[in-house]
């Protein structure tokens, strides 16, 4: 099963390497990992997407918790939560295609954030599935470059993951 795990971790050098190293050393699958400091600059928040059966996920959660730098952790998949991922796509936009690509961007509520005489760069936020759908819809031969952030997640409701 796919799990999305949020981790509050001390903003120390090497903290990211500890998490990445743990996944490598124990052979856990890691699909995406995003990390940045939060409003308290001594902490970073990490969002991890991984796959595994129940036992593997239980071990991943325990092993992450065991890392000395990890302050708090939440498996978002255990409750209802919201996920968003950001994607930027650079496409060839030559004469015949410009209108069509603009329409497609509108349908997906993507913004065109950079324009040249031969290209568009679009920006799109949503669930990973929505981003996948956009990529499906864009003709493959016009795609120049794709960059995705990996999903971020937050739980629904008034409660937050804090200290």
């Amino acid at each position, binding site marked *: 099963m796919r799990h999305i795990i949020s981790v509050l*971790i*001390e903003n120390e*050098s*090497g903290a990211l*390497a*500890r998490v990445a*190293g743990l996944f490598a*050393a124990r052979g856990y699958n890691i699909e995406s990992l995003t990390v940045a400091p939060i409003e308290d600059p001594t902490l970073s928040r990490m969002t991890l997407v991984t796959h595994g059966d129940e*036992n593997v996920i*239980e*071990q991943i959660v*325990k*092993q992450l*918790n*065991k890392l*000395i*730098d*990890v*302050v708090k952790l939440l498996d978002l998949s255990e409750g209802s939560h919201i996920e968003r991922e950001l994607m930027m796509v650079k496409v060839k936009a030559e004469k015949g295609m410009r209108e069509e690509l603009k329409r497609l961007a509108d349908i997906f509520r993507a913004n065109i954030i950079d324009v040249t005489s031969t290209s568009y760069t679009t920006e799109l936020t949503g669930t990973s599935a929505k981003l996948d759908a956009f990529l499906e819809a864009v003709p493959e031969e016009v795609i120049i470059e794709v960059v995705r952030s990996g999903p971020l997640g937050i739980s629904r409701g008034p409660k937050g993951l804090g*200290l």
Partner: protein
Amino acid sequence: MELSGAEIVVQALIDEGVEYIWGYPGGAVLHIYDALFQQKKMRHILVRHEQAATHAADGYARATGKPGVALVTSGPGATNAVTGIATAYMDSIPMVVLTGQVPTPFIGSDAFQEVDITGITRPCVKHNFLIKRVEDIAETLAKAFYIATTGRPGPVLVDIPKDVTDPGVRIPYDYPKKISMRSYRPVEKGHPKQIRKAVDLMVKAQRPVIYSGGGVIQGNASDELRKLVKETGFPITQTLMGLGAVPASDPNNLGMLGMHGTYEANMAMHESDLIIAIGARFDDRVTGKLAQFCPHAKVIHIDVDPASISKNVKVDVPIVGQVKPVLKVLSERKTKPDAEALKAWWQRIEAWRSVECLRYPHSDKVIKPQFAIETLHKVTRRRDFYLTSDVGQHQMFAAQFYPFEKPRRWINSGGLGTMGFGMPAAMGVQQAFPKATVACVTGEASIQMCIQELATCSQYNLPIKIVLLNNGYMGMVRQWQELFYEGRYSHSYVDALPDFARLAETYGHVGMTIEDPADLEEAYKEAFGMKDRLVFMNVLVDPEENVYPMIEAGKGHHEMHMSPYLNSERELA
């Protein structure tokens, strides 16, 4: 008080109560060595290889329960220490290792003797730190000791760049009295509800077995465990790391379990309907094939490390907590087990016991390694005695044939299985207990991995006794080759051996060579009589003896191979 970084390092160790530090100097730690030179409270022991510094600190920690401390230089000094760090990590031994590092402006430039030691050791330490400012030294060291010694203990490495210890920079010093970390809060007591559930299972059990490990020893919970065994009347089997928590002579003790465990211990595990695992981690050398592990049993697991629970074997009742308080509560519950069932269970166990699976053929021509250990016990049993070991057949023979009556008396590398551990570990133990008798049982292959430490023993007058069971082979390797590779002894013959007795003599020690079984006891008596001398006993043993019983890797507990000697006897009958 204003101190330099180097002085802070030394003063922090003193304030932490450190008595001994094992180390080896080099460029990056020269400021620290200079500060060491100018104090009298802490003793530095100069080893001859950094691996030995970590093993000695580790041996000290295992015998005393206090954290062991090692100090090494950057680059090769640090990498030489890695084996010892990994050894301590696998057996959860509290240790603090200080490594020198190149000055901070040089980090990342491939400077002379630079290695990324925090990167290299990340997977084999409980935690590590790279100190970047002199202001951080005291607090970081306090954290290092706190982390190393609490929760599930383990080694912590602190990497200290040379400029941070600059004698020219002095700052006010204050050692933190108490450490609290928002990201690290080790558990204490177990959950009462879980304990209640465990008691329920224990009351109902028909065929219970207590399976205890190194956690009971590291957690100083031997008294509580003895009480629990007494209170319940349950049989107990102890892992290689757990020997001595409950005395070998306790009637409820079934001996060691696992790959070279006793028939009764492994059969009891296999037939059990309730396993009470205490401070043990279901290592593959203990469980054998997981799919066949204790097929009929429910499992209670008491451990301080939540990640140990349900890692290899699914646990029915986990109790996360320090083993000591949990066992205390458990034994106070006065669990009254099903007496009838227990009686019937013990009858079955006695039948397995009556096989006497450890019997071996005696010989008056050649010293059997088992006999060498039994005789060692005979000669040392009344002493305040510690036995360290290297890795191989001799280690298994010692575990099987030396009955340990107390915790912390049997000191060996179980998790990593590090050849070269035994002698330096014995140095650490002897340093901690100068009056005790400390012996190291070893093999002719293992001893050569840290043989240079004979010099350290000379310099510091460490009168350890080395019992080398010399079979001329990497016996454990040869045994596997005999059994699983049709006797193709690929590179397991230990050729070009030195004359060990004379080698020991050149280091200023006493050397002995013992060949005749009839001489063994007297020779031991003579050797152990030399209180102030290191005696190196080169005991020539049967070259082709094997360790039995044995469970092949990947087989179940009920699929034990017994010694051919027992099998032939059975055929005769």
